[in-house]
């Protein structure tokens, strides 16, 4: 990666390889009158053009989620008679190179009968709204309800009830590498090889084999280096099936690489919530109940996990608090937009944002310090494992301790004094707190569509070098390093002797993949367990070689406790493969495979505090300090962990301040390029002061919890709470994201006309 030799999917070149270009609908809703491919097909260098009719035998896109009474659209990989989102594929052109393919795609003539579209979830529910799918006039895909305790009684007993509507706007994952794939067909073996930029190689293989009607064991799926996923590559998309279809038809390899524009129009997006929160409390700040009604913008059809994401929000809605009575309702709504699905945080940011905002709203109503009200309601350290009102079982934690550390780090008391002084000068200074929790290490299989276990094979080769095959599929999370560290520690071998392989279904045993902050906690545990099996074998072989019944394994050596004589793991490995003599009840070789099923999720948590100031003249927010204290259980590699947290924070701050996938009423994405869709750049990010507390997770033997999404989840509410706190003297209790300068300037100038 540092020398330019890493292989990403667009770096793959094969003999006779052709290039595909998708022809996409420019309309959000239209009936297709006709598709004329004649000019495109006649264009020099074009090998084939396929429409929905040609590809009708390829199966529809798979959604792995079932909810009671759910309406599931049948999304074919190429549209035939109707399009329902901008970017919907209507044809594919396959040509000798990407330049010719692009030229020919422009020559496909589609006659559309353009229909009215729905550009957002509340528009979808409005009286007389156009139907995204004609068979479902109300645009409602499902309704889902979850209750815990008795909210009616709790709300009746409350001294104060606060209500707030809030929006978690749509955001685009935008990994720096867009999607892309190369498919290659070997007709003689009826075998297909697909290189695709994915987080879930094995699941993708199973799904694609089904869509294409191939034997799963003859489909080899390889995730090469993947340039970021963030959930959007936790999916199987139409293009992967289309490219495979074309490769099988034409008998030569076919490549397709998504453009950035296509990425905005055809790769799943995140969030898309309109939420109505209510929180009920006693006068002393004790929270007695929480309600939320979620309107989830699902988009036009379902990708792999689309309907499941808001249900994750519901699970997380009590946050870190002793809220025993909860009531959540979800209305899942179709819109003529890109489907929403799992994007970094996936459901938990929405919930954490909601509960952390509501706690601040409540504190303001009760004129309590937002830190004090949190301490009052935290689940206490002696309550773990803690059964939540939403049916979860929090594994471990000491929320007050972590929060205290964050408050001490930023100097909370002094900062509040400084804020009081600044306010007297008319300055808009804010201190925003987020004490977040999240669900990580996805997860027990009953709770995860497609399974939540993970696999690992550890092979100690005859030379003593160690090869690890992991079922997860790292793409920037650094598990190649972390797993090598684990193996190095367990086997006493140098880290450089350990090779971690992943992402090739023909090399690695079946696995689930990388998402839901599960890589180390679930995948790493499988590695750890396989290493324990290896150690057992090593001791058996060592005992034989040392001719002793009392040996220990330490620092890569088997040592006879009586004589002190020792033999190295390298020598043992050689003996195990040479097998001149084999220990009783043993067999040759030094290989172990383990599949690990976790008994629970893990529940990392933390406290993020942001000190900000708003320029009243422009509405621009300046982050003066950002302190985060995260408890993710045991930490195996601090630098990797901090990198995950910093990156996560750039997303959370992005959601709070900049990012917004804006659709107009016609269903057009108006922030559909980097020139309009703002994301964190280096100059926009503050220096982050990161530290940790540690309550090891009892869920896995490594004691780890997961860190990939924590920064995203914790940062957004801290930022918004900071800005709302800055505006509190103006009577502001809530502002919807993103907190653009103009939005804040309007609020400020409306309340302080003299200042402008």
């Amino acid at each position, binding site marked *: 990666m540092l020398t330019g030799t890493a292989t990403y999917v667009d770096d793959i070149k094969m003999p006779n390889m052709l290039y595909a270009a998708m022809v996409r609908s420019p309309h959000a809703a239209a009936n297709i009158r006709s598709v004329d491919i004649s000019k495109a097909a006649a264009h020099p260098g074009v090998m084939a053009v396929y429409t929905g009719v040609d590809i009708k035998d390829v199966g529809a896109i798979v959604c792995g989620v079932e909810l009671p009474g759910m309406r599931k659209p049948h999304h074919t990989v190429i549209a035939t008679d109707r399009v329902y989102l901008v970017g919907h594929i209507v044809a594919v052109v396959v040509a000798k190179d*990407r*330049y010719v393919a*692009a*030229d020919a795609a*422009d020559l496909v003539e589609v006659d559309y009968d353009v229909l009215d579209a729905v550009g957002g979830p509340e528009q979808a529910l409005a009286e007389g709204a156009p139907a995204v799918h004609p068979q479902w006039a109300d645009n409602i895909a499902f309704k889902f309800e979850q209750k815990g305790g008795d909210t009616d009684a709790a709300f009746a007993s409350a001294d104060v009830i606060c209500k707030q509507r809030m929006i978690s706007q749509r955001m685009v994952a935008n990994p720096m590498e867009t999607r892309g794939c190369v498919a290659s067909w070997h007709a003689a073996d009826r075998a297909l090889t697909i290189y695709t930029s994915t987080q879930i190689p094995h699941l993708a293989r199973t799904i694609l084999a089904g869509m294409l009607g191939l034997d799963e064991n003859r489909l080899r799926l390889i995730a090469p280096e993947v340039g970021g996923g963030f959930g959007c590559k936790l999916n199987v998309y139409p293009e992967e099936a289309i490219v495979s279809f074309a490769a099988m038809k034409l008998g030569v390899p076919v490549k397709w690489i998504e*453009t950035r*524009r296509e990425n905005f129009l055809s790769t799943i997006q995140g969030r898309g919530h309109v939420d109505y929160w209510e929180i009920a409390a006693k006068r002393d700040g004790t929270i007695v109940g929480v309600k939320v009604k979620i309107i989830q913008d699902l988009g036009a059809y379902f990708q792999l996990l689309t309907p499941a994401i808001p249900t994750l929000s519901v699970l997380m809605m009590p946050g870190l608090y002793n809220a025993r009575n909860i009531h959540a309702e979800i209305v899942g709504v179709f819109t003529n937009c890109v489907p929403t699905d799992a994007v970094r945080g996936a459901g938990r940011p929405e919930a954490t944002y909601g509960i952390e905002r509501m706690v601040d709203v409540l504190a303001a109503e009760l004129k309590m310090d937002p830190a004090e009200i949190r301490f009052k309601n935290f689940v206490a350290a002696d309550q773990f494992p803690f059964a939540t009102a939403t049916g979860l079982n929090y594994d471990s934690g000491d929320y007050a301790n972590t929060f205290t550390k964050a408050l001490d780090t930023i100097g909370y008391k002094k900062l509040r004094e400084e804020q009081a002084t600044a306010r007297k000068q008319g300055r808009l200074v804010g201190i925003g707190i987020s004490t977040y929790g999240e669900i990580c290490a996805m997860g027990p299989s009953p709770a995860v569509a497609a399974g939540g276990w993970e696999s690992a094979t550890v092979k100690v080769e005859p030379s003593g070098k160690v090869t690890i095959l992991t079922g997860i599929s790292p793409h920037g999370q650094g598990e190649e390093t972390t797993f090598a560290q684990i193996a190095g520690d367990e086997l006493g071998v140098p880290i450089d002797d350990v090779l971690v392989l992943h992402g090739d279904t023909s090399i690695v045993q079946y696995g689930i993949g990388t998402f839901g902050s599960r890589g180390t906690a679930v995948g790493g545990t499988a590695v750890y367990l396989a290493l324990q099996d290896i150690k057992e074998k090593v001791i058996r072989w060592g005992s034989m070689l040392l001719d002793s019944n009392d040996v220990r394994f330490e620092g890569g050596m088997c040592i006879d406790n009586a004589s002190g004589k020792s033999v190295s793991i390298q020598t043992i490995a050689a003996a195990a493969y040479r097998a001149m003599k084999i220990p009783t009840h043993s067999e040759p070789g030094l290989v172990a495979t383990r599949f690990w099923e976790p008994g629970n999720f893990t529940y990392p948590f933390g406290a993020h505090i942001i000190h900000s100031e708003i320029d009243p*003249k*422009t509405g621009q927010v300046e982050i003066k300090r950002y302190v985060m204290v995260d408890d993710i259980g045991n930490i195996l590699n601090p630098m990797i962990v901090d990198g995950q947290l910093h990156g996560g924070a750039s997303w959370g701050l992005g959601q709070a301040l*900049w990012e917004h996938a*804006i659709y107009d009423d016609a269903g057009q994405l*108006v*922030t559909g390029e*980097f*020139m*309009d*869709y*703002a*994301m964190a750049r280096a100059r*926009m990010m503050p220096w982050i002061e990161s530290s940790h507390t540690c309550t090891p997770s009892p869920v896995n033997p490594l004691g780890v919890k997961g860190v990939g999404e924590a920064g995203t989840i914790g940062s957004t509410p801290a930022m918004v709470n900071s800005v709302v706190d800055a505006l509190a003297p103006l009577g502001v209790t809530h502002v919807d994201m993103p907190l653009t300068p*103009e939005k804040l*300037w*309007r609020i400020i*100038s409306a309340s302080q006309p003299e200042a*402008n």
Partner: protein
Amino acid sequence: MIPNTFEYTAPLTLKVALALIGEGGKPLAGGMSLIPMMKLRMAAPEHLVDIGRIAELNYIREAGGELHIGANATHYDVESSPLIVGKCPLLAETAGHIGDIQVRNRGTLGGSVAHADPSADYPAALQALEAKIVLTSATSQRTVAVGDFFIDTFTTSLEPGELVTEVIVPVEAGLTGTSYQKFLQPASGFAIVGVAARIRREAGKITVARIGVTGVSGNSYRALKAEAALVGKAGSDAEIDAAAALVGEGVEAGADLHASAEYRLHLAANYAERAIRVALSRTA
């Protein structure tokens, strides 16, 4: 994304280039605006005349109390040229605000000026500097005042066959202070509002004030009323505020996704205030 096909010529002399441009060829300078538009297929010129190899358009020199800058000077050249930094710091400072390092390394003064993007940075400075633009065709050459050059969004007084070949800016005498202040569009880095101020203060009184504004409307402009309000004043806070408040007066502000017209006008006043304040602080 992939541009349409086109014919490409890279002449080494201005004479050949102008002949080709006269025949309808589209000049390609740094390409920082044109190439992305071609890739998105929003532009599809049939014949590109790459002027990047014409050495005679690549110079920065002082003559007659003015700096003459060839059209091929990159933003980085402008930003880092000791001559410009020393003798026309406003232009150098403004160049440093354009895009990013890579864009400044490749984009040219002539290309940017000819493109006339309403959110570009240079026009604010050029307005404040009362720059002159030299337009050359195969048969003629004329020098146009910047106020007459920029006509509207992506529209200039360039006639078919003409090329921007030089930009002329004044050498600043002592006692003049300048500043460019910009409010960024966070995604693209373009100016939502950019204000360039150029102020001369003699014996405690402002004698010359020039304020150029970009981003606010479809065209850059000089804020004449604000300038007039400053002349003769000492430059107190109240005087600066009063003048800055006039920057958007009578201007039909544009509105887009990133800023409403009202906000743009408000920012224009606010950034004018900053620019004037900084410029004044540099008059000493």
